[in-house]
């Protein structure tokens, strides 16, 4: 649906046109070019000794380290540890937040009971709660899961409640006039109606889990990607720090793309 723009004045080949489509191949090329310029500039900066490699290792060196660490077993086991923590905490959060969010939105009185409290708690920054978590749970696995849960659960509850609120009333009222009691609409109407939104909310909160797992692992851990990064920092191994960061980015990217794909497959009816 392109708006016909006065073709006599503007050449069709111009790529720099305001709010107009450009060919897919051009977008791809532009993205690759952008990345190449960025990486090339970075490499050049170090080659020309503008910055010391100990502060900014060149991209090729980082790539080398990344592969090396992946092979020698210093990265992958720690990556798995982090992934496990993220998913465990995320699943606990989601399993609690989805029913509570739906109930809070479905029944005003339940919403009134929990909403002010949750609104307060969700503004507490997770790092500020690290000391308390360590006092309560020590430096073991529980602390990390607790911190991740803390960082996601309260946000997610409110998002679930909002997703539920957004369901058009007509869906419920239709079901009532087909003989459903309000409670009987939760599973066959409310859940499928909000599911596309709900999955997006969960995808977003999974992203937050990754932020918090690194904080938790930096502060109190002897395993995980946060630990890898923090240890490398102590020995000024900037290339290893960067390799760790890139791993986090890659996992985030892959997870996000997978979930988006799943979303498209599941909700093809939209």
């Amino acid at each position, binding site marked *: 649906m392109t708006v016909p723009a006065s073709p006599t004045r503007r050449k069709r080949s111009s790529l720099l046109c305001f709010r107009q489509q450009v060919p897919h191949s051009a977008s791809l090329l532009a993205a690759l070019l952008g990345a190449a310029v960025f990486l090339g500039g970075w490499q050049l900066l170090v080659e020309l000794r503008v910055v010391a490699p100990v502060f900014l290792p060149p991209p090729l060196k980082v790539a080398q380290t990344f592969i090396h660490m992946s092979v020698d077993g210093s990265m992958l086991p720690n990556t798995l540890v982090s992934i496990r923590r993220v998913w465990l905490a995320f699943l606990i959060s989601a399993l609690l937040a989805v029913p509570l969010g739906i109930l809070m939105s479905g029944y005003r009185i339940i919403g009134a009971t929990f909403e002010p409290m949750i609104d307060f708690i969700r503004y507490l920054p997770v790092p500020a709660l690290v000391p308390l978590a360590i006092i309560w749970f020590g430096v073991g696995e529980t602390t990390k899961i607790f911190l991740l849960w803390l960082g996601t659960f309260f946000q997610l509850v409110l998002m679930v409640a909002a997703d539920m609120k957004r369901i058009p009333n007509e*869906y419920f*009222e*239709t*079901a009532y006039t*087909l003989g459903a009691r309000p409670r009987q609409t939760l599973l066959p109407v409310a859940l*499928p109606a909000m*599911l596309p939104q709900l999955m997006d909310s969960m995808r977003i909160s999974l992203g937050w889990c990754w932020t918090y797992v690194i904080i938790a692992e930096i502060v109190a851990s002897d395993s995980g990607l946060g630990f890898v990064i923090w240890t490398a920092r102590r020995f000024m191994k900037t290339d290893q720090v960067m390799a760790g960061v890139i791993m986090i980015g890659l996992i985030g990217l892959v997870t996000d793309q997978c979930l988006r794909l799943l979303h498209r497959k599941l909700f093809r*009816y939209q």
Partner: protein
Amino acid sequence: MEQLSSYLQFHDVTKFFGDVPVVQQPFNLAVPAGQFVVFLGPSGCGKTTLMRMIGGLDTPSSGEILLQGMPVGAPDIRRGMVFQSYSSFPWLTVRKNIEFGMRFRRDLSAAQKKERAEYFLKLVGLTDFAKSYPSRISGGMRQRVAIARTLAADPDVLLMDEPFGALDANLREDLQFELRKIQKNSGKTTIFVTHDVEEAVFLADRIIVFGPRPARVIADVDVISLIGSERNENVRDSERFFHLRTEILHLLRGRDAKKSAAA
């Protein structure tokens, strides 16, 4: 098919939202079983509110609504409603949407439900689209899905709130024709809300014409006695149809037309 002898009655019904009167003068109406009644009036005059009260989706501020002599309460399967928008469930196929209409019926076996779903798919001409999702079919088909779903639930009263309001003119006329036929064949007592005069005249056995808010009945028109009960495209072009339409238009514009139409 099933023909329950229903009888729907408004008895001195008023409705206020807070202090805002929507139905201020006590509203009274008796609908015999099987009648096709159209509520016609300008936007915001309270038609939807009156209909929602039949469905139990709103409650009267005073007075009561009786179905077969019994006051109606919370919504249930006896009063099925078809909405203008969000009328079908987008996550269910056409067939599943229609089957949903029987989801809360305990009196039917799974096999009977399947069979009925098939019957209503055919009735509304959607057999070929049984496996399609609502987003893949036209707006008119979506409204047919909603009508079939409600009929499958077998309500005593069929409530329709401007169900064809979002459709273009040609499609509307086709659906009006089909609906009128389906309603006569099923014998369901039907309340249909619209602000479109032609739609009202074509569909109705009887039109309740409302003035601007708060709801006030300005005419109770016996359409059958004026243009007969047979409705097809010829009727739409007939002089009687045209006359009645014009007369009601004048009523709505507040002109003091000769009340030959008002019963």
